[in-house]
């Protein structure tokens, strides 16, 4: 690795102040499972690397007035073991479990996963399906945006270089919402998703309500399948319609063709995964 300075602020406030002062010649380091790999292979080394992995303000998962707050510095292992996540958003546990292996999950954070912004990120689809929002703090204050507005392109977010992602909020209306995540990779362990997907829904009077479908690894960023959602919204639960929604979702994606899988195989996977996650969420839902 090429030389850089290493700093480790001891509070969120001082991290933000330092970011303001040093940007754009500073980069944030959380778990390092993405960024250290980059640092080893790039000539584009910042002057300063700022470690935020142990900032207390970025830790913790708490119930707050408007929903569930997950600190950006929470690791995938902490998500898997957290009772509030288990109670309110268990699909996230499943998603976290598919990330890398134990060592990666012990270090890697949910904030780092979202900010790296690779299309195959495994925490994206479930959070998008639960209408998650993120809090971003910079020297000019805090802004709250919807998670989908964080994602701009492959490895590109709407964060400015002097801003810190501080927390992810799952809104109250999504807490306990039946949801399911499914990842398809070439192996179970240590493999990126060829396609991943998550769906969430309520059932009211036997009909779909507030259905959300999100897929990853098949477009420049994790996306919502708005057409497929619209197709099912308000309709009576019916296996054939769910299958058709899977086909509609395929038209909303633009998967790549590469050595790991062809475009047409990925398209087939989208239809299957969307169908499966909706059906799994239906199984979890109260049917009144």
């Amino acid at each position, binding site marked *: *690795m*090429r*030389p*850089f*300075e*290493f700093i*480790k602020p001891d509070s969120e406030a001082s991290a933000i102040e330092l970011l303001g002062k040093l940007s754009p010649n500073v980069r944030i*380091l959380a*778990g*390092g*499972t993405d960024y*250290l*790999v980059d*640092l*080893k292979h790039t000539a584009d080394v910042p002057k300063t*690397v700022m*470690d935020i*992995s*142990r900032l207390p303000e970025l830790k913790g998962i708490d119930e707050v007035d408007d929903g569930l707050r997950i600190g950006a510095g929470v690791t995938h*292992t902490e998500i898997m073991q957290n009772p509030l996540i288990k109670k309110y958003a268990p699909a996230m546990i499943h998603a976290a479990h598919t990330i*890398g*292996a*134990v*060592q*990666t999950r*012990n*270090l890697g954070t949910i904030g780092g996963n979202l900010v790296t912004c690779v299309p195959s990120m495994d925490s994206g689809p479930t959070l998008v399906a639960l209408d998650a929002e993120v809090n971003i703090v910079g020297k000019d204050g805090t802004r709250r945006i919807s998670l989908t507005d964080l994602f701009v392109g492959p490895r590109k977010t709407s964060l400015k270089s002097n801003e810190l992602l501080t927390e992810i909020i799952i809104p109250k209306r999504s807490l306990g919402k039946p949801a399911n995540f499914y990842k398809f990779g070439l192996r*179970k*362990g*240590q493999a990126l998703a060829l396609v991943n997907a998550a769906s969430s829904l309520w059932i009211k009077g036997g009909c779909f309500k507030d259905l959300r479908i999100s897929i990853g690894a098949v477009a420049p960023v994790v996306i919502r399948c708005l057409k497929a959602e619209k197709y099912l919204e308000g309709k009576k639960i019916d296996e054939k319609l769910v299958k058709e929604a899977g086909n509609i979702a395929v038209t909303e994606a633009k998967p790549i063709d590469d050595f790991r899988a062809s475009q047409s195989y990925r398209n087939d996977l989208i239809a299957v995964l969307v169908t499966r996650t909706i059906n799994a969420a239906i199984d979890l839902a109260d049917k009144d």
Partner: protein
Amino acid sequence: MDVELIINGEEKTASIPPETTLLKLLREEFYLTGAKTGCDVGDCGACTVLVDGEAVNSCLMLAGQLQGRSVETIEGLANLEDFHPLQKNFEDLGSLQCGFCGPGMILSAKQLLEENPEPTKQEIQDAIAGNLCRCTGYTKIVEAVADAAKEMREEP
């Protein structure tokens, strides 16, 4: 920069450039060469050590992140009298061939057994999914972890 940390129970200090990884710190400053350099990008698990009890890839941590923390390496497992039950059972079963993956494999298994004294086969496989072995096919590794778990339950 200076880093103070605890390695295998002993307080240590090192003066190193900030771009030093934990793996490099262990191997080149303290000559603890049990943690191996395999891929150096988080894929193989040969560099696995325990930081505050959790298995991590030491190639993906900067030494500066270890300030005040406690690291356990394979060198810290045995004492003068005896091997750790994991080490004993790996040896008894002949679980390793070249041995390159061994230190990381055993430390991943150690985290597992500390959290879950009675793991299922699947839980053992999940715990070592980040430790690649090019020689053995894993069968005897998984068996040795299960045997060690049993032994540790019987005589804690």
